[in-house]
């Protein structure tokens, strides 16, 4: 073929391709009988908790609504990349699904961007909404007072520890630390007596994203002296009365210092492992079940990976692991601290079939299905009827411990700027973890970053 002859062919092909691409890109609205559901798929291939649950709901839904179809658009990515991908999809009606799984820390930010549809018109006619506890209803409420998401559970955080390793190190198996130093001392003892295990894991740095901020940093920060009391005025991150983000606080530095100590004294995992984005998968799938990690500061949802049929079956976990509440810095009342978040189901503003999507939410949130989900994903119930059901409380060891933590839990100041503030926290943590920055330098870096992240809505404390 002469080189010039290829050109028209190529052109024709390009035009044809461009034509088809735009033609088929009519998006979720193209078929009124199909709803597209996006959710976060685990990066661990053997974990199918959500996939299994949704497949079951899909079957029920399609049976109850003949002619209607559910199509899943799973996003398989670490947390931070999941949000990015989702936001990009939400920007265009061509790619926006009909139903999305939103993390509550991000929901206000996405509401401000106009990505989500208020659900009030559906909620008014939905009996089951009355079963949701008030804090859960607040979780997905925008600054305009409208509700943008249906929470499917909440979570709390605490310390998981290996009784076996504790025995070896001569520590009590009913361990309950009273202060941060108790935690560090236990880790130091383990480092000495059982040198081949990782004494203590606390998530850190940008690679794990929000997990570093919430599972580690805020668990420390909200337990520092003089902050985080339940009246809400002394939130160490955000001053609600001044409506400004807090900079330059000693509490911030103290929390960073804790992280620094863990990695400087090599009480944590190897820094390169700690900064690997898949470290969360390793903690749950490898380190804890194989007895390579003594103490983990982590979320209440861990057992979902260990349930029968979930991939890394480990039914013995409840005998082998102990649970302890995270203490406050120096034992300040109530002596323990927890953070709560959770995820919601939301309908994108650019969804093609919002009505049908809400029907799908209803199917997920019948009492029986909701309960099935709480048990499957080790969630803390936000529905009164499920919480009262003994079958739920008995379904799994640990549920009672983590549900009791709700009394001393804190919620993130999930305002629109929060995701960026959270990244700034992660940067500071990463700095002290690698040893590139001192605590003071990292805290100073955070203060500067905070200004640009919040448009100067900053108050010095």
């Amino acid at each position, binding site marked *: 073929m002469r080189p010039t002859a290829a050109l028209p062919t190529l052109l024709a092909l390009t035009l044809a391709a461009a034509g088809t691409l735009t033609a088929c890109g009519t998006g979720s609205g193209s078929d009124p009988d199909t709803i597209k559901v996006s959710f976060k798929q685990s990066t661990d291939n053997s974990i199918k908790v959500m996939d299994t649950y949704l497949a079951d709901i899909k079957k029920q839904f399609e049976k109850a609504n003949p002619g209607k179809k559910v199509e899943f658009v799973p996003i398989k990515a670490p947390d931070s990349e999941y949000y990015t991908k989702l936001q990009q999809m939400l920007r265009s009606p061509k790619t926006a699904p009909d139903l999305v799984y939103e993390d509550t820390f991000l929901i206000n930010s996405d509401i*401000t961007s106009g990505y989500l549809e208020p659900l009030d018109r559906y909620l008014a006619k939905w009996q089951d909404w009355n079963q949701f506890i008030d804090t859960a209803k607040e979780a997905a409420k925008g600054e305009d007072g409208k509700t943008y998401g249906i929470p499917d559970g909440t979570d709390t955080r605490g310390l998981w520890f290996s009784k076996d390793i504790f025995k070896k190190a001569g520590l009590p198996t009913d361990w309950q630390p009273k202060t941060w130093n108790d935690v560090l001392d236990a880790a130091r003892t383990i480092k000495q007596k059982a040198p081949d295990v990782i004494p203590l894991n606390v998530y850190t*740095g*940008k690679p794990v994203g929000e997990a570093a901020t919430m599972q580690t940093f805020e668990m420390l920060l909200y337990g520092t002296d003089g902050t985080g009391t339940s009246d809400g005025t002394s939130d160490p991150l955000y001053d609600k009365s001044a409506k400004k983000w807090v900079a330059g606080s000693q509490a911030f530095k103290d929390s960073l210092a804790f992280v620094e100590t863990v990695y400087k004294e090599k009480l944590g995992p190897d820094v390169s492992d700690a900064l690997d984005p898949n470290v969360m998968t390793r903690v749950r799938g490898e380190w804890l079940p194989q007895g390579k990690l003594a103490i983990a500061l982590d979320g209440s949802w861990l057992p979902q990976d260990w349930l029968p049929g979930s991939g890394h079956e480990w039914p013995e976990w409840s005998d082998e692991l102990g649970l302890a509440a995270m203490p406050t810095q120096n034992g300040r009342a109530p002596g323990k601290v927890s953070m709560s978040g959770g995820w919601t189901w939301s309908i994108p503003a650019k969804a093609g079939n919002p009505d049908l999507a809400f029907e799908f939410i209803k199917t997920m949130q019948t009492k029986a299905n909701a309960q099935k989900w709480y048990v499957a994903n080790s969630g803390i119930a936000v529905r009164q009827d499920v919480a009262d059901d003994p079958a739920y409380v008995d379904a799994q060891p640990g549920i009672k411990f983590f549900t009791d933590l709700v009394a001393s839990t804190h919620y993130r100041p999930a305002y629109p700027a929060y995701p*960026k503030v959270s990244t700034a926290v992660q940067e500071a943590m990463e700095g002290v973890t690698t040893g*590139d920055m001192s605590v003071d330098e990292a805290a100073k870096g955070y203060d500067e970053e905070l200004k640009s992240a919040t448009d100067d809505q900053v108050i010095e404390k």
Partner: protein
Amino acid sequence: MRYARSLTRTLPVTPAVVLLLLFLAGPIAYCAYIAFTDLQLTGQAEDSFVGFDNFRTAFGDEAFLNAVWLTLVFTVISALLGQNTLGLALAALMQRASKPVRTLVGGIVITAWVLPEVVAGFLLYAFFRREGTLNAILEWLRLPTQNWLFTLPILAVSFANVWRGTAFSMLVYSAALNEIPQEITEAAEVDGAGGWRRMWHITLPMIRRSIGTNLMLITLQTLSVFGLIWVMTRGGPGGRSQTLPLFMYEEAFQKSMIGYGTAVALLLLVVGALFSVVYLRLLRTEV
């Protein structure tokens, strides 16, 4: 009449021009526009035009300056010194090698080039990581091991880029060396010029244009390397291997600041343009 003729001449290229404008110039212009707004991926009701704010922020941002510096280090080490020199050396050695050696070495080098970036990234990650091949070899030799991706991340990714990209330079130089007339080399040899002198006084000046073209191409390729570094280190630890493309990705998609990220992308374009100008000048001067 003349108008009609020029019309019939332009007509056939119109679709191509339209496509180019639509799919090439369009997005670039849109990018340039976004770079002057404060567009965010989330947390913003509507974006607004902010002028040169993003650029001012960039030059006051230590992380940005760090990324520029690392980009230069990465480009100089991996492209200019590594790929370029090694490619030339391989090409020169292979000229004298026997055919089987040539085929074998050429095949191996080109395999690295043919591999998709992500696969190459994983291979090199497996090579450098703490439990990786390199440390296994070092252990066998009873030499101290370390986590290379953590202690020397920018060198590790530079090496990876050399490993992957040398084939390109080698191919360019092989072609160029074949173009040197045999008689000139022979004449020099008769005049008593040794190997190094022939290289310096005959070969290099004669392949000067190829050197310029090659430098330009590999520099531009290296400036935009993303996948390789992303797979190996994600720019970490603590930004110690964060070149401009990775910095841009982080700002635009992880911190959701699309406007700022795009501005950084434009600045990357400027860095590339500066390099190009230098090379074009080098090409123009006559020896």
